[in-house]
């Protein structure tokens, strides 16, 4: 008979026995599994050493049937061993788990049976100050261990300095980083990023030589395919494009030597609107009339067939696309312009505004994707857009028949429009002293206030040009029509004077530090002072016909003649 007092002892004994048996069982199973595992390491069907050797032997003796049978037997043995071992391990683990569960219950039971009432500890409570003091020392010692371990890791795994691939990647990343951005306004002003200087306004800062002749030409170099586009300049690179009926090319020249740095051919861009008819343009416009533009990282070139190509300044292609063949009476001519990371394309086409084919596009300079586009209520035109700051904001001013429209370059929102032009608009507008001057033959010269929603201040009809863009210093406006220059008062539109030159003009005049520089088609450069009366400061002859506007950068002038590219100045 068991008395109640002895009951826990019996339970304890039972639990202890269960525990012991379970422990033995667990040991046995885990031991077997361990041995099994170690032996199983030799059975690896994925790397059958013996079979591989036998197979090699068979290669030498291909007809050996017994060898084949040996391979088959060995293979089968290996596979059976592998899968039976796997099955055994699966079952063994469950057995082990069961054993552990019983073991845990056994020990729990034993502990429970021998449970004692809590008893106050005999030792004193440790003084927390001593505990903390030991703790601090231990933590410091641990810190030292961590430091030694870290030092061991650093020294032990001593790796070579940055491997070559990382250096290469770093260079590529730096290049990509440079390519991502765009030049700021100051950088743009120091270069010649588009037609008629930064912003395409007709005025720029530069110190070109006062007088020069054929002998003071720094260098001249023959150009490639013909083009009526003007050179643009970025640092020590000059960019031009050229095209004929079949080929389109972009050229990059060294500004110091005139050496051709690179040339790229634009081809193979599909055009949906091309049809089967060959593209015809007027000879005076040519196949490459739009002047290129650069944002300081990439250059952009557009051609009469609607091809638009982007290269980085080193000539690596970035993107290219066809904008659709422009339906243009004389051939597409509007020059390109960049604003921040946008390429602005004035794409006026169609015989009538009702065709609804004219758009202003803003393309992402890096991807070439259209960021925004706005429909323009105009037929084809040949004037280039102009970027100005007026009324406290940047404005993109466009001229066409019959309206001058200003847009927000950021999103294409129309800011104002003024109806004042007519006919086939080719002259680009001018900007001086806060006023926009838009002009075309057969209609008007109009002074507009871009800060007051494009209010028309006055109109005049004297000496209206058909091609050449006007220039103004804010006091007077100078117009060139064929061989005649007409100067009008910028405040009133009153004609001040006119003057006939020996040759006609096709290039746009530039106002450089208060002096007007303009080339006639024979290549004679005229320097004029604007004022109430005609005043010529001097002429210099290039000796080659010129139809494009020169680029004035620093002390140099870059002129594209019909056959050569010239650099004048130091």
């Amino acid at each position, binding site marked *: 008979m068991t008395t109640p007092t002895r009951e826990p002892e019996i339970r304890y004994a039972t639990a202890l026995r269960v525990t012991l048996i379970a422990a033995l069982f667990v040991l046995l199973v885990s031991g077997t599994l361990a041995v099994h595992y170690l032996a199983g390491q030799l059975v690896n069907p994925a*790397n*059958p050493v013996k079979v591989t050797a036998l*197979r090699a032997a068979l290669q030498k003796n291909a007809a050996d049937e017994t060898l084949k049978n040996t391979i088959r037997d*060995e293979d*089968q043995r290996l596979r059976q061993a592998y899968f039976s071992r*796997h099955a055994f391990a699966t079952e063994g683990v469950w057995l082990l788990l069961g054993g552990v569960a019983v073991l845990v219950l056994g020990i729990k039971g034993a502990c429970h049976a021998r449970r004692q009432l809590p008893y106050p500890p005999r030792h004193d409570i440790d003084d927390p100050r001593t505990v903390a003091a030991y703790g601090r020392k231990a933590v410091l010692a641990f810190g030292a261990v961590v430091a030694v371990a870290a030092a061991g890791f650093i020294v032990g795994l001593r790796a070579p300095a940055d491997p070559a691939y990382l250096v290469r990647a770093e260079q590529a990343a730096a290049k990509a980083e440079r390519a991502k951005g765009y030049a700021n306004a100051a950088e743009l002003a120091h270069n010649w990023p588009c037609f008629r200087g930064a912003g395409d306004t007709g005025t720029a800062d530069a110190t070109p030589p006062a007088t020069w002749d054929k002998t003071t030409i720094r260098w001249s170099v023959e150009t490639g395919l013909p083009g009526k586009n003007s050179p643009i300049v970025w640092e020590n690179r000059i960019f031009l494009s050229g095209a004929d009926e079949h080929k389109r090319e972009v050229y990059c020249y060294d500004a110091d030597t005139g050496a051709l740095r690179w040339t790229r051919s634009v081809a193979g861009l599909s055009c949906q609107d091309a049809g089967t008819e060959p593209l015809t343009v007027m000879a005076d416009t040519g196949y490459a009339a739009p002047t290129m533009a650069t944002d300081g990282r990439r250059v952009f070139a557009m051609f009469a067939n609607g091809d638009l190509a982007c290269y980085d300044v080193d000539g690596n292609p970035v993107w290219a696309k066809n904008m659709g063949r422009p339906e243009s009476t004389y051939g597409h001519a509007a020059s390109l312009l960049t604003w921040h990371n946008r390429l602005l394309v004035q794409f006026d086409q169609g015989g009538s505004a009702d065709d609804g084919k004219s758009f202003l596009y803003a393309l992402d300079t890096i991807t070439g994707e259209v960021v925004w586009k706005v429909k323009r209520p105009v037929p084809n035109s040949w004037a280039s857009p102009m970027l100005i700051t007026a009324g406290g904001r940047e404005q993109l001013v466009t001229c066409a028949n019959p309206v001058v429209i200003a847009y927000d370059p950021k999103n294409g929102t129309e800011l104002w429009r003024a109806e004042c032009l007519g006919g086939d608009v080719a002259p680009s507008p001018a900007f001086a002293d806060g006023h926009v001057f838009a002009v075309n033959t057969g209609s008007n010269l109009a002074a507009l206030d871009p800060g007051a929603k494009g209010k028309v201040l006055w109109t005049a009809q004297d000496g209206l040009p058909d091609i050449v863009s006007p220039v103004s210093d804010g006091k007077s406006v100078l117009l060139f029509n064929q061989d005649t220059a007409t100067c009008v008062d910028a405040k009133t539109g009153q004609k001040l004077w006119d003057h006939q030159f020996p040759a006609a003009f096709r290039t746009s005049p530039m106002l450089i530090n208060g002096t007007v520089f303009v080339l006639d088609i024979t290549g004679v450069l005229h320097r004029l002072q604007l004022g109430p009366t005609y005043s010529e400061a001097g002429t210099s002859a290039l000796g080659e016909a010129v139809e494009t506007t020169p680029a004035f950068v620093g002390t140099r002038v870059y002129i594209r003649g019909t056959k050569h590219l010239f650099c004048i100045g130091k």
Partner: protein
Amino acid sequence: MTDEKQPVSRREFLGMGLRGAGVLVAGGALGVLAHAHATTVWQIDPEKCTQCAGLPEARCATACVKTPSAVKCVHAHAICGYCKLCTGFFLPQPNDLNTGAENQQCPTGAIKRTYIEDPYYEYVIDRNLCIGCAKCVKGCTDFGNGSLFLQIIHDRDHCTECNACAIAVACPAQAIVRVPGTAPYLIKTSFK
């Protein structure tokens, strides 16, 4: 609690504020971070898999926490050429074009070869035997259409859906990627 009527001490007030903020942060974070649909599983991108070229054994067979691995060979019959001399089935320079062990790539005989019509043979993988060693995959990818490829099999018997796939860490080509749980396989549809 008995002390409810006592005025709130500074410590308690601070605690309440912190708890309130904690719950707000936790709730907000749960709302922002969690995507109920975003359950992902690990899968082998067959286009990235190099069959552990240059290594003695495919990591897919050895690195999985499961033995045999949860990675199995999968056969896209749609792009299979049904070759008589299947380079996934036969070793290079086979002794003969029969199913003898001396000719077979597969170390566990997991590929079943069936005659269809001259000269075409069908190859079917027995997933119960496959150990994911990639020998057949290598043969088929190097010389054939690449219709044999490895996939992690997502059911309770195979992948344990580890939060961090052990093979993904070991993969020399980093070919193991997270894919949506609703589309757990990356099946080859064309030869690349």
